[in-house]
């Protein structure tokens, strides 16, 4: 069995990350993979922010009930829960930049051992750079958790000593949830907290582009089998717009 076959599905990664979100947190979920986190809160009351100007974002509306003035940062239809509030873009990014969000979950191309994150461009020369809100989110939330496949489709590592792609934020990532492991970013670099079953520390180090330390109480990351996907998917990470 290849490493990738042992890896978690996106729903399983989202499930694992959601376990670290307590009731009452204010959370911004980046576009794409991070949006799945909202499905795994087991009834805990968590308030979601979307940077286009809402707190209390609710789930996708039933087909036919979409409102063009109710969309999330990914431009997809949403609902507003009882208790929701709307505000202008200055306050919305004041919430982001002012450190009011307990958590922002971002997708990424690469994360470095110093906490740098690259998630907006694969080249510094992109003539149409898609910055969106990602730099603000990376700089502003109390905690940045990253969700991503552990490696590129090509097998190239995404956890690196230094990011090769242009940075979204410098030294901001707190924890990375990959398809193979839960990895903390510490002043001493990456520290692995949990690994999926069947993958050894040596296996993990072999597909990682930075030196890994392993927690003394290294855990096993066992996710519900019913959330497993038929095949892993390594498309581009989501980005705020």
């Amino acid at each position, binding site marked *: 069995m290849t490493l990738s076959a042992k890896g978690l599905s996106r729903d399983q990664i989202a499930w694992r990350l959601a376990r670290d979100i307590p009731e009452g947190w204010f959370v911004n979920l980046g576009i794409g993979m991070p949006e799945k986190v909202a499905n795994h809160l087991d009834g805990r009351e968590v308030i979601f922010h979307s940077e286009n*100007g809402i707190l209390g974002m609710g789930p996708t509306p039933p087909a036919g009930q979409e409102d063009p003035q109710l969309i999330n940062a990914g431009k997809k239809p949403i609902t507003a829960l009882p208790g929701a509030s709307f505000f202008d873009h200055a306050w919305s990014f004041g919430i982001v*930049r002012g450190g009011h969000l307990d958590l922002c979950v971002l997708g990424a191309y690469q994360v470095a051992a110093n906490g740098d994150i690259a998630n907006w461009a694969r080249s510094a020369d992109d003539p*149409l*750079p898609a910055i*969106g*809100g990602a730099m603000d989110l990376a700089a*502003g939330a109390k905690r940045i958790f990253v969700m991503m496949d552990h490696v590129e489709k090509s097998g190239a590592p995404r956890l690196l000593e230094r990011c090769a792609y242009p940075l979204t934020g410098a030294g901001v990532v707190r924890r990375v949830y990959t398809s193979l492991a839960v990895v903390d970013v510490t002043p001493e670099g990456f520290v692995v907290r949990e690994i999926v079953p069947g993958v050894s520390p040596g296996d993990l180090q072999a597909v990682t582009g930075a030196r890994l330390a392993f927690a003394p109480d290294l855990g096993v990351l066992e996710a519900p089998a019913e959330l497993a996907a038929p095949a892993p998917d390594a498309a581009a990470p989501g980005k705020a717009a």
Partner: protein
Amino acid sequence: MIDKRHEDARACLTDIRDGDTVMVSGFGDSGRPNWLMKALIDHGARNLTLISNNAGEGPVGAGALIMSGLIGKLICSFPRGAMVPAMMDLLNRGAFELEVIPQGTLAERIRAAGAGVSAFYTPTGYGTKHAEGKETREIDGRGHVLEYALKADHALVRAKQADRWGNLTYDKLGRSFGPLMCAAAAHTVAEVDEFVELGAISPEHVITPGIFVQKAVLTRPVPADAWKTEAAA
């Protein structure tokens, strides 16, 4: 009697001259002043600097303005979507200049212009390519980038209600950049769902006070094919 309500969108744009800076509200399709943006294309002023969060979702709104050839410079945070190939082609031909800014910094720069704050230090983008060539400063042990207020000659803004003083409300997430742009532009035109009597909007619920709005017109739908113009020269 003060009355900022007007009938003809095109007539509200006569002051827009070649080379002016124009802000347009909205986030994606929400809060976008389609009727005024179509009128801006028809108005025909050239070499405009366009400030719009999004650009390129499709051949509508900012995408249509860019294809019209009237835009000399685009300032935005997210130039992505279905129009990317066409925009790349125009960029490669030097048909317009592009400046991409982090979204929160874009919002705050516009807000600063309206509020008379000339520049500010933000942590956003510090240590990234965005900060290259910019003045930076360490404050409380953290790196910051100096950013300047971003004002405009004109703002075209989508809102929900307007009264004759120009007081505005917005519709849900259509609010976004609208209130900031109204204050940041010397001349703001709002496109609204309805005109209401003075006093119909509670003073508690006015989002943009009329002091920031010069004119208001009723919105009308813009058919998809009405956005089409001759390809940019």
